């Protein structure tokens, strides 16, 4: 709990918008979709009051391309949407990854496939962590499980995006977006006005003391060997991200079974783990905070120590593949799915955790 500092009581969606404002976000481009509408609603008032630009675009496709444009100019910019909207944005996201344009993208995951429903879901794990659009690329993917984390991760996302010249994705869901919790805001960031100085597009004077060659930002590389070089550069970048992998662990030290769950399901599973601990069951929790890079080292270490694993997800089984890859030399992971369309509660997880614990 925060000391004496004034806490604000806000929805996760609002926390994301506030985190973005404090991080120096200057442009927001969006198109309405439940369950993330509080983000554009907040930005349409407070970003504009702060002197930024808010555009409700004519479509998700347009919003994503506006984001590409702002990022190419070195401007801290973001968009937010929910699953079907994210699908529409994928072309521009692929272009941004290919041409190394920083941006912050929020997906408040809802049920799918198709239009699905407006309830919480983790069905977009693959789309989020495997790139999402065409081509061989990755996004940095952050998965908050509280309003405070939603705030903090968004606050940090802009720095990460500019440091690595890559889009950063915040992956929440309807629970994270709609739940209200207290947050402690941070001091607003003073953004370096020269950020992106050596690559951003701000107009190249053809004469005078500032005369320079024009810059080109593109994702089309037709010359011999050029695309391979670009892809190797991207690959090196993704490799360097591995040190950013982060997770929360809870009661894992003497645990026989470690539950792996992220986001809203992570915190609900934590409740179940705590309830079972009180009954003397040796269970623990690992909650990935970054989904890409995935906290594979932390999982491998637990696997090497002889733990067994149960992945709980709000989908038909997606993250479990990454868990299995992480622990593959020593262990496997079981899977418990909460089907999108259902609202899980801790009671729902205790029986499957006990079943997995009992199977040796």
């Amino acid at each position, binding site marked *: *709990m925060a000391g004496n500092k004034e*806490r604000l*009581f806000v929805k996760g969606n609002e926390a994301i918008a506030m985190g973005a404002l404090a991080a120096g976000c200057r442009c927001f481009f969006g198109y309405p979709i439940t*369950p993330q509408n509080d983000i554009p609603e907040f930005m349409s008032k407070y970003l504009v009051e702060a002197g930024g630009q808010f555009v409700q675009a004519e479509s998700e496709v347009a919003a994503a391309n506006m984001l590409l444009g702002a990022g190419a100019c070195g401007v801290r910019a973001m968009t937010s949407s929910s699953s079907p909207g994210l699908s529409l944005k994928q072309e521009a996201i692929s272009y941004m990854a290919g041409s190394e344009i920083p941006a912050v993208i929020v997906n408040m995951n809802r049920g799918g496939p198709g239009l699905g429903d*407006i*309830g*919480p879901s983790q069905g977009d794990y693959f789309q989020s962590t495997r790139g999402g659009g065409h081509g061989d690329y990755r996004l940095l993917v952050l998965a908050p499980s509280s309003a405070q984390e939603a705030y903090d991760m968004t606050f940090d996302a802009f720095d990460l995006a500019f440091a690595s010249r890559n889009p950063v994705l915040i992956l929440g869901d*309807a*629970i994270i977006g*709609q*739940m*209200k*919790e*207290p947050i402690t805001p941070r001091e607003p960031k003073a953004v370096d006005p020269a950020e992106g100085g050596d690559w951003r597009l701000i107009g190249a004077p053809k004469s005078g003391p500032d005369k320079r060659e024009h810059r080109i930002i593109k994702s089309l590389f037709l010359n011999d060997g050029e695309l391979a070089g670009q892809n190797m550069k991207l690959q090196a970048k993704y490799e360097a991200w591995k040190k950013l992998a982060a997770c929360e662990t809870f009661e894992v030290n003497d645990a026989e079974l470690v539950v792996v769950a992220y986001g809203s399901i992570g*915190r*609900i*599973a*934590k*409740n*179940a783990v*705590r*309830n*079972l*601990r*009180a*009954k003397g069951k040796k269970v623990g929790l690992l909650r990935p905070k970054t989904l890409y890079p995935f906290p594979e080292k932390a999982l491998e270490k637990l696997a090497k120590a002889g733990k067994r694993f149960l992945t709980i997800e709000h989908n038909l089984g997606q993250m479990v593949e990454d868990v299995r890859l992480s622990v593959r030399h020593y262990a496997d992971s079981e899977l418990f799915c909460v089907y999108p369309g259902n*609202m*899980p*509660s*801790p*009671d*729902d997880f205790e029986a499957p955790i006990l079943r997995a614990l009992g199977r040796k």
Partner: protein
Amino acid sequence: MKRYIDVIMAGFGGQGVLLIGNLLAYAGMREKLNVTYIPVYGVEMRGGTANCTVVLSEEEIGSPIINTPKSLIIMNRPSLDKFQSRLADGGIQLVNSSLVEPELVEKGGRIRTVLVPANELADQVGNARAVNTVMLGAYVASTGMVKLETVEACLAAVMPAKIVPLNVTALRTGADYALKQLASMPAVKKPAKAAAPKQAKPAKSAAEKKN
């Protein structure tokens, strides 16, 4: 024992359950508790039902969604039908007896019920729309989870200043009514204010003892 309670508040859209959910959460936050508030989530419509879940805890809150709540605020009949059977053993429910027939309330001592004629009390206070704050006053007095003064101090965070005094009266009216009823309950011999927090304890899950 650490302080912990969760509550589902349910009623017709327009009865103000989301507002008092927010209000209780603010009061919890003011008293340095961890709090979560989550509104019912779906395709809602005017005249339909509304509910929200609030959790107050000294410890970190895992799930904001609760299947078997330790307390309920029931504003209308459909809410009683939906939630009464989900109330945890030893739990307490505040039922708006202006709109819910008392015969429908579960008997047998598994749970405790405080009946509050909230619509009539709100009329007495001077505004029929204060039915929600009457119920919250009764709830706060019955559970003792936060101080009524704290709730009063948080009113301005969730409503326009000009209706705060009316709602202070409404909170107190609901609280007084509930305390009188609790004092006359055969099962609760001790003064209601002291007895109420104890009531919440057996309902607390064993998990809360740990760490």
